[in-house]
């Protein structure tokens, strides 16, 4: 066999090898990336530090190795470099969740939901999103308590109002949950004016849970002032809903000024139970008056809307809020569903049922289980083998040939293409002995001992 024919055999072998590699085709499965991938991915990153695909895979590998601190900046860069990389986004969410950075986790999950195409993973991201919202409220409450002295010395935000859960004063257990439902109605109505910023009911509840106050303590103006400082709310609505004979209810809603601890005379009202929604509107308008807010006709019209006219549906909804505040999301979901069934137009109930469903699913699945599901069902998409043009690429391009590295570590990266030898071989050059051919040139430099 001639050398050329031997060469063609090797050529055929290599082409078959390359074709076989290509035939593996397509996207890289996330499950193929393991902690053992880290060294090679780090080597690739050193060659192509801006390659979002490499960064995504490295971040996932770090996550799987439980190196969340390493994974976070890598995945941040991966998502920034390729906002369409869903795997990077959802792993960034899980990483931030593991690190307790719920705000970042929320942003990442929301980003994933915005770009995702996989319905199952989108549902998973929604569940995580609902849970990190809840965790973030708890975290913020703990942080506020840890910094209570500082917050107490700070002036609260002037147009911010928080609503405490209304105390129920009565004996009928079926009505017990109305205190939460009534507070939620009031929050919803106050939020319809652009002239005031109303904190979510859940935020207040998370704070009260962290403060670990008993029912009697919650009802005091001192608790309103303290929670207002912790939430940086200028005013706090604090009230009670009382059961009266003859299916009557009475509502008292006081407005507490957090800065001065002054309590304005409470807005009061009494009505039959089946006219509770009218009573709530009456209280809401009174609170606006006490806040010194002049409502526009449009705001008044919006506030006058009733989310439901069905008292039984509202009672079920209120029970759902109580269960949700307890963390029993399955029970909350059942109550919200019941409310939505009793009044299909009760949108707050159906929305709360969906959120409770997500929270129920999310709390039953730790991040490790979620990661397993994500890993098995998602891909990175086709990796981009093309390095990005960047300042660093330009630096590397500039340094190439001018001050090349000492060790040609054969990473095989496509970032740097083969280059010719740039260093003079002085002895061979001066003696004109370069190459396999015999020297013939017109000049042969002789460097030998002078005779």
């Amino acid at each position, binding site marked *: 066999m001639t*050398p*050329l024919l031997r*060469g063609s055999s*090797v050529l055929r072998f290599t082409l078959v*090898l*390359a074709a076989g*590699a*290509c035939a*593996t*085709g397509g996207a*890289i499965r996330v499950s*193929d990336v393991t902690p053992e991938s880290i*060294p*090679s991915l780090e*080597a690739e990153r050193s060659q192509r530090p801006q390659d979002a695909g490499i960064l995504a895979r490295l971040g996932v590998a770090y996550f799987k*190795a439980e190196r969340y601190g390493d994974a976070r900046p890598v995945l941040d860069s991966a998502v920034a470099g390729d906002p369409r990389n869903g795997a990077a986004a959802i792993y960034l969410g899980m990483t931030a969740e593991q690190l307790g950075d719920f705000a970042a986790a929320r942003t990442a999950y929301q980003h994933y939901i915005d770009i995702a195409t996989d319905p199952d993973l989108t549902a998973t991201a929604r569940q995580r999103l609902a849970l990190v919202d809840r965790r973030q409220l708890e975290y913020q409450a703990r942080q506020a308590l840890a910094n209570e002295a500082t917050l107490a010395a700070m002036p609260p935000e002037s147009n911010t109002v928080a609503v405490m859960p209304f105390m129920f004063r009565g004996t009928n257990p079926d009505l017990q949950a109305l205190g939460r439902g009534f507070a939620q109605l009031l929050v919803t109505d106050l939020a319809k004016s652009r002239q005031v910023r109303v904190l979510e009911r859940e935020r207040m509840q998370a704070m009260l849970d962290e403060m670990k106050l008993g029912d009697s303590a919650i009802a005091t103006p001192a608790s309103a002032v303290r929670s207002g400082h912790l939430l940086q709310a200028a005013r706090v609505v604090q009230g009670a809903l009382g059961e009266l004979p003859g299916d009557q209810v009475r509502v008292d809603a006081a407005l507490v000024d957090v800065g001065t601890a002054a309590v304005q005379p409470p807005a009061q009202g009494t009505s039959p139970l089946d006219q509770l929604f009218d009573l709530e509107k009456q209280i809401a308008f009174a609170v606006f008056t006490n806040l010194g807010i002049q409502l526009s006709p449009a705001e008044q019209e919006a506030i006058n809307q009733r989310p439901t006219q069905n008292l039984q549906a509202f009672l079920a909804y209120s029970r759902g809020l109580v269960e949700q505040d307890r963390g029993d999301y399955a029970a909350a979901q059942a109550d919200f569903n019941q409310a939505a069934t009793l009044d299909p137009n009760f949108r707050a109930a159906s929305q709360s049922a969906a959120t409770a469903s997500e929270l129920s699913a999310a709390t039953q699945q730790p991040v490790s289980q979620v990661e397993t599901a994500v890993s098995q069902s998602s891909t990175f998409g086709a990796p*981009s*083998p*093309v390095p*990005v*043009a960047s*300042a*660093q*690429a*330009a*630096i*590397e*391009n*500039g*340094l*190439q*040939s*001018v*001050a090349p*590295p000492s060790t*040609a*570590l*054969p*990473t095989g990266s*496509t970032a740097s*293409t083969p*280059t*010719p*030898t740039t260093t003079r*071989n*002085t002895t*061979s*050059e*001066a*003696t004109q*002995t370069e*190459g396999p*051919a*015999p020297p*013939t*040139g*017109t*000049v042969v*430099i002789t460097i030998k*001992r002078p005779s």
Partner: protein
Amino acid sequence: MNARGLTARTLALASLVLLPAQLVAQPAAQGGRVAALTGVETRGLSFQSGLGIKSVTEVAVPFGVVWTASPRLSFDLGGRYATANRTDSSGSTSISGLTDIQARGVYQLVRDIAVFTVAATLPTGKTKLTAAQLPVAGVIASDLLPFPVANFGSGFNVTTGLALAVPVGGWAIGVAGSYRQNGSYTPLADTSLSYKAGGEFRVRAGADRIVGQSRISLGFTYSTFGEDDFGSSPIFQSGRRYIGQASWSFPIGNLGLVLYAWDLYRASGTVPISGSMTEKRNVLALGGLASVQVGRNMLRPQIEYRVHSIGVSQLSNAGRLFSLGALLQMPLGDRFTLLPVARFDAGNVVNPTSGSAVSFTGWDLGVSLRMGT
């Protein structure tokens, strides 16, 4: 060997033995990432008759350490131990020994904008060659035929360089300049006279641009040299060198492809005593390489074609080289990567005396182990 050379070599050897182990042992938590590499590289070429040479083989053991001390500062150090052997009708001649070791520091003055480098070549390599060994050193120094070790040693030198990146429109432009100051070394075994290569000034401009899904990269390097002295007398003025490079990277599915070309032109050198000119040389290379993920491994096949030209007044064909090979990047556990490589070469070299082209075939087999992060 003089005292200075002995001291430098001893120090370099000490650093070779001690430094990598110390660096590898250093935990990443102390602020640095360390990568080290070693392995075996083998290369062989077999020539048909007509050149007076039958075969050339080279076996090299590379070693290298890269220490990223901080995001802005990194150091690398590397060299090889090698044996090169040339066989002709009269027998075999070989050169064995350590090569020079290069140590380099890279500091980002302004991150991703300005980089300062200092590189020193430690004179650990074998420089004293007998007359019989000169052809061995010559064949591995060929521009046409790449060898793992093309030069066993050329004395101590220091290179300082500065690279800058400037965005211009859609282009990322890199410009760099360096100066290399050479020390003297003893090139021949039968004389104690020293050879001191002239200083080298090198500038380079590079440009990168993304076009759609692809990347275009261009580069141009220019080098000019001072006069070489032999025994304190000017003996040789190396010709200027020009390197042009271009590459186009683009994806096809999950396959990354790079098409590239480079050209190295070496202008004629001059001999000051006689004023005569040496041959000018040119190598043009055209190639392509791919990268494809195969499970956890990365396969990188490569193909290249080189054309070599030499001439005093006009360039004429001096040889051809066709190469086909592949590198496989195989992660092993948490901290190791195995890098086997195989390449096949075929081509010819023109005998300038007879004008006939002499065919050759060659192979390149190697395996490297990369450690650390």
